[in-house]
C-alpha cells in the first residue's frame, strides 16, 4: 500500500510530505524523508519490545499489560514525590493525560525540554519571542543565520524545506538571493556552504551577541578588536548584512542552550533580533529536536500555565527550572518513583541522575529496548506515534499537525496505556 502526505515523527521539522510504501506489516519504501526519518520509519516495526517486562531481583521476566499497569499505578500512588518525565515523542493526547495524572498524584511532570530548549523558554519568559511560522521564512527570508546548530546532521530537511534550498514566493532566484551565515565553535557540514562562517570560541556566544547589538545600534566604538575569537571587522560586516536584509531569520540550536550562561545566550540572541526589527524584519526560531517536544510545552502550558518542569506536590502548579527540572530532582535524589514516557534519559542524562533512577521504582513506557531499559524495574511497550499510532504534534514553529497511523502491530498507544494507569489512580484518589 502507498500512503501519501504522511508525517515524519522524528525531528521538530515535522515534514508532512512523506510517501510510505507498506507490504503487510512491513515498511518497504520511504520517499521524501531524510536519512533520520527513513531510518526510523523503515526500522520501527522491527526492534520492538514484544511485551511488558519486569524485574524480579536480578532477573528480567515477561509480564502482562495488566500486571505492568497495576505495578506502575501502585508505585506512583505510594510515592511522596513521583517524577513523570519524557513526553516528547508521543502524541498530545497522552501528554494531556500525563498532566492530569501528575496533578492528581501530586507529582512533578517534566519533558525533555529541560535538557534541550528549556533555556530558550526561560529566555522567552524574560524578553518574549519574535517568531513566525516556517513558511514565512521560506517565502521571504533573504538572510538566514544558523547559530550553534548543525541542521545538515540534526534537521536534514530544514534547509531544503524552509531556507537555503527552498523556493520563496518573494524571491526570484531563492538559492542565489538568500544569504547564509553560520556561527559555530567548529566547522561542520553546514558551515561549508555558508556565505559567511563565524567561528566563535566555546562559551563566547554571549559576548558576540552583545557586540553585535552594540554595532547594530551604532556603538561599534566600544567593541574591542576581537570578541571571543571573532574579529571586529567581521562583526561589523555581519551587522551591516543583518540591517540590509529585507527579512532575516535566525535559527539556533542546543549549542547555545547548553553552553555556559545557558538561557542568557538566547536572551541576548532575542534582544539582537528585537534590535534589528527597528531597522528591518527579523525573526528567530529555536531548532527543536524531538518531533513533538513543542507539543509537550503547548499542552503543559494550557493545562498548568507553564511549558515544562511543573511541580504539583501541593495540588497547585509550581514552576522553577533548576529546582523542578528532572536532572536537578534526580541528581538531588528528591523523587522516590519515576515514570518515563517516550524518552531515553539513560542515553541523555548525566550519570548521577541514572544512579538515582536505579535506586527508586522506575517504570518506562517505550516501544523499544533503549538505554534506559536496564535502569528501570518495569517497561511497557507501546505503539509508535506516526507508525502504528496517531495523534497531535506541534512543529518547532508551533504549527499543529495530525500525525497519522498507517499500520497496526497490535500494540496499545501511549494514550491507552497511560489512560489505564490513570484510571487505576483515579479509583484510589476519587473513589
Amino acid at each position, binding site marked *: 500500500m502507498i500512503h501519501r502526505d504522511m508525517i515524519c515523527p522524528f525531528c521538530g521539522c515535522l515534514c508532512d*510530505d512523506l510517501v510510505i510504501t507498506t507490504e503487510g506489516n512491513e515498511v518497504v519504501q520511504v520517499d521524501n524523508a531524510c536519512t533520520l526519518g527513513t531510518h526510523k520509519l523503515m526500522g520501527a516495526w522491527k526492534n520492538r519490545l514484544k511485551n511488558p517486562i519486569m524485574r524480579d531481583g536480578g532477573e528480567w521476566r515477561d509480564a502482562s499489560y495488566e500486571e505492568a499497569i497495576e505495578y506502575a499505578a501502585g508505585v506512583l500512588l505510594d510515592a511522596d514525590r513521583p517524577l513523570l518525565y519524557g513526553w516528547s515523542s508521543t502524541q498530545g493526547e497522552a501528554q494531556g493525560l500525563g498532566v492530569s495524572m501528575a496533578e492528581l498524584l501530586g507529582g512533578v511532570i517534566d519533558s525533555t525540554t529541560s535538557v534541550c530548549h528549556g533555556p530558550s523558554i526561560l529566555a522567552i519568559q524574560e*524578553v518574549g519571542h519574535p517568531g513566525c511560522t516556517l513558511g514565512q521564512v521560506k517565502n*521571504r527570508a533573504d538572510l538566514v543565520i544558523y547559530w550553534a546548530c548543525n541542521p545538515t546532521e540534526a534537521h536534514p530537511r530544514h534547509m531544503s524545506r524552509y531556507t537555503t534550498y527552498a523556493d520563496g514566493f518573494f524571491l526570484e532566484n531563492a538559492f542565489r538571493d538568500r544569504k547564509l551565515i553560520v556561527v559555530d565553535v567548529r566547522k561542520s557540514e553546514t558551515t561549508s556552504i555558508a556565505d559567511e562562517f563565524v567561528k566563535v570560541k566555546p562559551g563566547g556566544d554571549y559576548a558576540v551577541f552583545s557586540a553585535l547589538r552594540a554595532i547594530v545600534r551604532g556603538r561599534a566604538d566600544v567593541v574591542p578588536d576581537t570578541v571571543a575569537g571573532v574579529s571586529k571587522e567581521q562583526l561589523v560586516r555581519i551587522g551591516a548584512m543583518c540591517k540590509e536584509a529585507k527579512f532575516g531569520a535566525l535559527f539556533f540550536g542546543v549549542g547555545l542552550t547548553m553552553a555556559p550562561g545557558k538561557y542568557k545566550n538566547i536572551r541576548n540572541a532575542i534582544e539582537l533580533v528585537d534590535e534589528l526589527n527597528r531597522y528591518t524584519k527579523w525573526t528567530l526560531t529555536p531548532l527543536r529536536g524531538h518531533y513533538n517536544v513543542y507539543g509537550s510545552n503547548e499542552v503543559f*502550558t494550557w493545562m498548568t500555565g507553564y511549558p515544562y518542569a511543573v511541580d504539583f506536590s501541593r495540588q497547585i*502548579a509550581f514552576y522553577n527550572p533548576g529546582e523542578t527540572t528532572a536532572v536537578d530532582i534526580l541528581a538531588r535524589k528528591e523523587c522516590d518513583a519515576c515514570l518515563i514516557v517516550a524518552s531515553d534519559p539513560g542515553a541523555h542524562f548525566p550519570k548521577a541522575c541514572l544512579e538515582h533512577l536505579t535506586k527508586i521504582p522506575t517504570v518506562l513506557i517505550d516501544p523499544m529496548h533503549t538505554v534506559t531499559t536496564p535502569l528501570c524495574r518495569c517497561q511497557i511497550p507501546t505503539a509508535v506515534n506516526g507508525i502504528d499510532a496517531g495523534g497531535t504534534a506541534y512543529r518547532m514553529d508551533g504549527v499543529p*499537525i495530525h500525525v497519522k497511523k498507517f499500520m497496526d502491530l497490535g500494540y496499545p498507544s501511549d494514550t491507552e496505556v497511560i489512560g489505564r494507569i490513570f484510571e487505576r489512580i483515579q479509583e484510589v484518589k476519587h473513589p
Partner: protein
Amino acid sequence: MSDLLIKNAFVIDPINRINGEIMDIAVRDGRIVEDVGQGAEVIDAGGHLTLPGGVDSHTHICGTKVNFGRYMSPEDMRAGREARRGVKHSISGYSVPTTYANSYRYAIMGYTTLLEGAMAPLEARHTHEEFSATPLQDVMANTLFDGNWGVMEAIRDGDIERAAAIVGWTLSAVKGFGIKLTNPGGTEAWGYGKDVTCIRDKVPHFEVSPAEIVEGMIRVCELLRLPHSVHLHCNNLGKPGNYACTVGTLNLAPDLNEKRQTLYATHVQFHSYGGSDWKTFCSKAEPVAYTVNNRPQIVIDMGQVMFGKTTTMTADGPMEFNLYRLHHDKWSNHDVELETGSGIIPVLYRRKNLVNSIMWSIGLELALLVKNPWQCMLTTDNPNGAPFVKYPEIIALLMSKKYRDAEFATVHPDTGSKVVLPALERELDWNEIAVMTRAGQAKALGITGIGKGHLGIGAEADIAVYPLKVDEIDPSTEYQRVIDGFAKTKWTVKRGRPVSRDGEILVHGENTTIWVDPKIRPERDISRDPRFVEMFNHWYSVRMSNYPVQDEYLRRNLRMETEAAI
C-alpha cells in the same frame, strides 16, 4: 438527562421581550420546555435576577497566541492560583489564565457561550484542542482572513465568488465560525516589517487596499450566508487620530442583512482616538458613536480598558511592535504564512497615566453614546483592555453616574479636558445590560436560532441566576452590590445542568464547538481548483491534505450548515 425546574426566577429576557417577570423555567434534555413533571430537580431562584447565560462575542481564550501569552508569562501565573479540589482542576493566572481557569471564572460570572476572536486557519487544530479543555462553555472561533493570499488575489481580480469559495472551504476545513479581519492588509505588510496606515493604502505586492478587502469580504460573508457578519478589527489600532480611519471604515458597510448587522467592529475603544500625537491625544468617541447611531447595519463592542496589569495580544503584529517600542517590555511576534500575524506584550494601565485614563473614558463613552444597546456589546477584548473578570465593574460603571464620577476623581487630573465622560448622565438599566452581555451578543453572532441568548421555549437551557434583587437595589447608588452580584452567580446552569453554585464549580463538563459549514456548489469547490491547489502546495509549509482539522478534534459539536449562493 434529568428534568430541572427553576422556580421564582426574576427573568429579564430581552429577545422574548420579558423585562422583569417572576416565572418558573422548565428544562428537559438541556432545552427549555413548557413544563416538567414532579420528579424534576428544583432550584429556587428566590426572586433573584435570572438571565440567559452570558455570551461573549469577542474574547481571547484559546489558541496559539493565547497559549503563547501564558508560555511567556510565568509571572502572570503567580496570581489566581487555586489548588485542585474535587472535580475542579488546579488553576493559575490572571490576565492569561489556564484554560480551566478561564472556563471556571466565566462560569462563575454566568457566561456559557464564548467566541474566540482570532484563529489562524493554519493553527486551528490548536484552538480546537484548547476548546476541548474549556469544559463549561460552548465555544466558536472567528477565523482570520486579513492577509489571506488567495482572498486578496481574488478581490484584486474582482472575483468575489472565488474569494467566497476560498473562505467557505477554509471555514469548513478548519471548523471556524465567522470571518475575522484584523488590520486587513496590515498583517501581510508586516511580513516585511511594514504596515498600512489606513483603508486606501495598497497592500505591497497584492495591490489591494484594506477598504477593498473589507467591502469584498462583506459581500463574501453574505454570499456564504454566514450566521455572523464580518468581524473587523480596523486598521491603525491604538494610534492617535485613528478615529477618522475608523469612521471611514464604518461608512464602507452597506446594509445587506435584515436579521443582523453587516459589519461588527470590535474593540472600538482602541479605534476612537483623536489628536495627532500622544501629547494631543483625546477622545473621539462622539463622532464614532454618531456614525454607529446613524448606521443600524453596524454593531460594535467596547474593548473597555480597566486599570491594572494585563497582557495585550492580537493578530495585529505591527501594532504590537509599536507598543513594544513604547514600553520596552517583553515582546512576542508570530507571523503566520499566507494568512495573518500576531503579537503579544504585557501592559500595565495606570490611573496616573493620562493616555490610559483617556482610554478608560473612551470605552465608557462609546457604550453611553451609542443609543441602541443592541449596537454596542460589553467587552474588554479580553485580555487586551482588561481580563474579563472586570466585567462586573464595567456593568456597574455603566449603571451608575455616581460610580463613574467617583472613579473619574482618581484618574489623571488632565483627563477632563480630553474626554466627554463627565458630561454623560445616562445610566443603563438592567434590561440594557442584559442586551449588551447576552441577548445582543447572541443576535450579533447569529446564534439565537440555535437557542443562544434567550430563554424562550426550545432555547438552550443556559441560565444564570445572580444574587441580585432588582426591586431592592438602586444601581445608581449601590454600585458595589451590582459588582458583587454580577461577579458570582447563585447558579449557573449550562445545557440544563447546574455547573456552578455560589462560586463553587460543580461538574467537569463538556462543551459544544459551534462551527459553520457553507454548502457550496461542487464546481465552485476551491479544493479542486488547480491554481489554488498549486498555490497551496507550493507556498504553504504544510500539504493541503494535512491542513483541514479532522473531525476527531471536535468532541461535541454543532455544525451550522448554510446554503451558500455560489
